[in-house]
């Protein structure tokens, strides 16, 4: 079994002289522990509290808007007769998409032995969980009668009513809950050695007790490590198909319907590519902030940023291909409804949304053909935000432009959100960043044990790498 764990613990590849080291600054394992675990121990700066209060306020405002919606009805949103889904499902798909990068980084890159992932996988996983929580909120609150949301779960009941397994919304329930469960397990499992490190590091009594509890008695024994590595690998293998399945299932919400613009076979791969695209963009946004605020330039290096930008470029082009393909198929199909929907997307009343999407998702990533721009933190930061904006508009365009003008022109209408929908969206951003900030403060934001394993110090021929550096 030991050889399976080899990719993580051994570091043969990084001994190659032409490889850029993954950790800079000649850090020792102790430095890493100091750097990461001290965040928990030392008091947070005023900047932290300021940011937290802003995000907390946004979260509270969103929760108020949610309460208002539930108390009054979906009518406080801007939805109308043809457009029965708007910002709610747009946000749902957007958040789910963001939640994709975590699993991809943790599981797939792990299986593919992409060891640069160690610097970012923890925050990516955390981001996944928070994003999926935010995403899961929307299907619940967008119901006309959210207090009956549990009817979407098949459970034995006195009504002898079963869910309708033909409905993609039921598939969604399974896909999203499975994904959330596996993501939490994966994240927590990877956390255990680091929680133990922090447990050893902190001195105050209550935190120590908590970290002791959650580190499940980890002492770093060889047996522990062996079991841990195997469990981690198994979970990675379980999660990998989820990366593909969750967003495929989410795309079925649309592709299974008969609505022109939704009823498209390209959706599953298109949605998965888009999800990875947006997920990486969000990881970049978060990591660049964390890197700057927490001084992690040595651990999250330009190489990481470069790698992630390459993924952005690749997935951005996949998404662009899908946009083109949709048009081609619509024109090629000879179906006038289909043709109309796509022409209307680009040149109709929501044309501005369409072209925003094309600019952000197709044009902006083209910058990253240049190595210089890939390694430019400012450009990357702006691009990552633009990609997130673009991916939000992609979902908006798919959902709203298809609905607002479908088959019978008599039922066509326009949709614009109300302050409540905007507030709820801002609220979920608030919830997301609040959770992330709490995470960054109280949980090791970098996978300490994994980073230690890729230190030049961890290499058997450590001095060779050192000379190169």
């Amino acid at each position: 079994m030991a050889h399976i764990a080899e990719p993580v613990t051994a570091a043969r590849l990084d001994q190659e002289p032409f490889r850029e080291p993954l950790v800079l600054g000649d850090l020792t394992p102790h430095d890493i522990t100091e750097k990461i675990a001290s965040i928990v121990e030392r008091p947070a700066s005023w900047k932290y509290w300021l940011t937290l209060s802003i995000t907390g306020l946004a979260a509270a405002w969103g929760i108020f808007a949610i309460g208002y919606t539930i108390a009054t009805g979906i009518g406080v949103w801007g939805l109308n007769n043809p457009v029965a889904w708007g910002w709610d499902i747009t946000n749902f798909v957007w958040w789910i998409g963001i939640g994709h990068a975590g699993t991809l980084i943790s599981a797939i890159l792990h299986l593919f032995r992409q060891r640069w992932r160690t610097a970012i996988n923890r925050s990516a996983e955390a981001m996944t969980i928070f994003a999926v929580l935010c995403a899961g909120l929307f299907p619940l609150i967008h119901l006309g009668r959210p207090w009956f949301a549990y009817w979407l779960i098949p459970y034995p009941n006195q009504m002898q009513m079963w869910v309708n397994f033909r409905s993609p919304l039921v598939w969604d329930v399974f896909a999203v809950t499975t994904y959330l469960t596996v993501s939490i397990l994966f994240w927590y499992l990877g956390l255990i050695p680091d929680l133990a490190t922090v447990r050893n590091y902190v001195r105050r009594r209550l935190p120590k007790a908590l970290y002791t509890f959650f580190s499940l008695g980890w002492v770093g024994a060889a047996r522990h490590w062996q079991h841990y590595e195997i469990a981690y690998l198994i979970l990675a293998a379980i999660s990998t198909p989820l990366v593909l399945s969750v967003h495929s299932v989410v795309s079925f919400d649309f592709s299974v319907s008969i609505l022109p613009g939704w009823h498209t076979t390209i959706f599953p791969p298109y949605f998965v590519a888009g999800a990875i695209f947006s997920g990486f963009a969000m990881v970049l946004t978060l990591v660049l902030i964390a890197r700057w605020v927490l001084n992690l330039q040595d651990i999250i290096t330009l190489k990481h940023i470069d790698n992630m930008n390459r993924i952005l470029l690749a997935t951005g082009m996949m998404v662009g291909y899908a946009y083109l393909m949709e048009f081609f198929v619509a024109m090629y199909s000879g179906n006038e409804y289909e043709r109309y929907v796509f022409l209307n997307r680009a040149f109709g009343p929501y044309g501005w949304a369409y072209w925003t999407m094309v600019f952000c998702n197709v044009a902006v990533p083209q910058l990253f053909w240049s190595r210089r721009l890939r390694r430019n933190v400012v450009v990357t930061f702006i691009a990552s935000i633009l990609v997130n904006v673009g991916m939000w508009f992609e979902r908006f365009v798919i959902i709203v432009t298809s609905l607002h003008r479908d088959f019978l022109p008599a039922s066509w209408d326009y949709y614009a959100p109300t302050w409540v929908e905007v507030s709820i969206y801002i609220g979920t951003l608030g919830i997301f960043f609040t959770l992330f900030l709490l995470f960054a403060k109280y949980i090791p934001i970098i996978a300490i044990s994994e980073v230690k394993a890729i230190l030049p110090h961890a290499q058997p021929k450590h001095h060779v790498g050192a000379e190169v550096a």
Partner: protein
Amino acid sequence: MSASRLWQSLDDLNGGQSEAEVSGLDPLPDNELSRRQFLKLLSASAALAAVAAGCRRPDHKLVPAVSAPEYQVPGLPLFYTTVFQHKNAAYGLVVKCREGRPIKIEGNPSHPINHGASSIHAQALLYTLYDPDRIRRVRLGQLLQAPLSQALKEIATALQKTAAEGKLCYLCIDEHSSPTYDALLAELQRRFPWLRGVILPSFLTDTAAELNARVLGLPAEIVPHLGRASVIVTVEADPLGIDRYALWHIRNFAHGRRLRSRHDKMNRLIAVESMMTVTGTNADTRLRMHPAAFEGFLAALLVEIARSRPVPGPILRAAAQLPHAYAEKAQQLARELLQAGEQGVVLVGAHLPEPLHALALAINWALGSVGDGKVLDPAYTLPNSFPKRPGIERLREDLRAGRVGAVLFVNVNPFYSADWELRQLLRNVPWRVALSLYHDETAAESWVHIPVAHPLESWGDALAVDGSLSIQQPLIAPLNEGIGSAQDILLQLARMLDPESFPGVETYYDFLRQRWQQRYGLSEPQWESLLREGVYTAVPRETLPLRFDAPALAGAIRPSGLGREGLLAVALPSYALYDGSLANCPWLQELPDPVTKLTWDNVAAMSPGTAARLGLQSEDLVQLRAGETVVTLPVWVQPGMADGVVVTTLGYGRTEGGEVLKAVGQNTYGLLPQQQLGYVSVSLTPLGKRYPLATTQRHAQLVGRPIVQVTTLPEYHSPEGPRFQQPEFPGYPAPDGRYRIPLTIVPPYEYKGHRWGMVIDLTACTGCSACVIACQAENNIPTVGKEQVRRGREMHWIRIDRYYLGSVDEPRVVHQPMLCQHCENAPCENVCPVAATTHSPEGLNEMTYNRCVGTRYCLNNCPYKVRRFNFLNYHTDTRPPLEMLFNPEVTVRMRGVMEKCTFCVQRINEAKWHARDEGRERVRDGEVLTACQQACPAGAIVFGDLNDPQSQVAQLRQSDRGYFVLEELNVRPSITYLAKVWNAPAEEVHQLRTA
């Protein structure tokens, strides 16, 4: 004693012992009633009986209709006939009552005018009955809850004082068609010489009656019988729209174009108009024309007709002197009219000036379409349609001279609709008394307001245009704390003024019975059968012999005075609210106008050309100034209108009388020239502000989609048949051989028992929207208000989609009723995660409200977008007694729940119970009528069992005009549409197809 022994009575069981003996009770003392006790009981029961008898109101026997059970059984409906009066038009109703409360109004199938159909206004009557804004207590000066007797006493005193001063008392009533009401007024005026009755309508439409009086010696309007016409030319007449007898006209018109086979004939409707009327939208050929050209056009037409038909010289000379316009069109039209002969008719809008009426009368007379048994039959004169202006002028004179001491307003609202001068004059009258349902503008200006009973709460009668009489039966005790109808109040007042008056008459019911007894000598059983049938046709009809005064007619043919300069504006009764008396009914406020699809507002409609010239677009606020009057209205750009014309509607801008009508639209009565409907020239000032309008249909173009299929009669008759724009899809023939089924790997579901389906004939549908309100009443559909309509959340289960074909200036219009198609492969069903919408074995797409969680996925996936979502709790503001309005057989939906057309499943189930009770396996054809079908005056909707090959619906489905909307989606709708056929030259529709 074994318990298992068979026994038949307690005595049997107990071996012959009585129950008392067994239970151990003492038997009752045998005969211990003493003389004292006997007398006590005797006197007590006598006193009780006397009290009970003395307190009871006199009973009037109500007789349910024949088809209904004889007596009330809880849970079973009772049906009563009554009559509906829309001003001076009347038609029969059958009202469905449950547990003593009316819950649905239908047309009376035995009434010769409507044959079971109903109109939006008849349907809305039910809402006004339960309207929470109806006043229940008498207001006497500042005293808000005065007893009626006190109010009457004070009114009587005031009237006596007025009479003693030698002053007049005016009784202002609205237009009506009740002969007994007329008799009551005549009797009152005979009894009290100082009392003068006057009909004070909201607006005057005297022109035709005045002309008829001079030319034909008939001081009344003749209502055309469109069933007898084969070529109908309307000059801004709107027989299918705002006409009071629109329901009858639609029926007759549709009758003349019922295409059951390729060889059927069809009438032809040519609309000449500057505005877009409902009639214009149904025209086979529509001629857009500025009103100034009407006289020239009609004169040219008359001259053309005179080439083949004798026309008296003076008339022809007068017509020849007018400048002719559209001569070529007139020539074509004359040819058609001459071919139709006495089946041709020209109808002129009531708002047009007399010369145009005169020209039309001359044409009709020349064609021979005036006379007994003809289209314009003097037997079909509109009751009480004599010119009203003389009466009003006399009122004005008396008011100016200060001769009027008191005015009684009975269900009229001059303080809303009358001109400024009349309002001022009325304000100067010392005693003003209002008798009305609502505390309206006039009630607010009156000293006393007596809330009278509703037509569904009071007795009366009405004369229909064909001479049939109907009795108005009360269906429920008056909800306004038992205050009687206006007629009852007048009778009480008369008896207070003069106890000798009206001998033997306690109430209006007595008066009615007495009069009917005297005139028609009905025995008690005959009276009962009259109530049961709801219509009395054995009335001898008094028709005057027509004369034809050619010089008088020639004298009326002169320039119409309608100019081309500037802007011409006209205010017409609105389609839904009519003159504004129905403004507090949200059903009508939210009913999309059949042409503009606007709700909750009136607008200044103008052509796209005029709007472009003035730099205006829809929703821009403008000021219209006509003389002293200034009206601020939002612009509505209406395709198909002539340039230089602004059309607005009356009935909006009410200020008093309810919560619903407040702040809805603008009062446009000021635009009427001398209270008469008619054109005025206006100046228009853009205000540079915007005003949001709530329309239910924002797109009117078909963008080339085969949603409505259209053809022309020549093409339909041609050997090749119509060339419909068929959608292409791979498929195979359906078992019926008529349709094709798109390729599928799923075997079709086999319907064993019933299979419900519907056929909608687009050629018959005029867009009258009676179905919309009927559905709303039947299915407890809420109104949502302007703001929600603007957001696109109106709840109507059936809507009428209105499409414009062709150019924006000369569009052709199709009305397409759109409702749940009850698809066999319903796309809504498989996407519902909780199985709240499912398919029934009889082909219904069913909605289980209490299972619905409101994901709205079904709505997204519905290609027809006919599902309606309760975005908010639209029933929260249901004020009492509106909850009595709800149909107890239909669930009232809460917020967060999806709803949609059920094909009136409650009616289907009821019919199935009846069938089962009678031992039948199947429901008979025609036993289930959906609410929309029942209301439809055109007979455009047919519902029934598609599995019964003999049923009407199954046979109509085989029609060569039949098609499914969005057939290529393989949803397989249960509703078949029959293509629209225009009786117009084939080229016209070819152009549309290529355009």
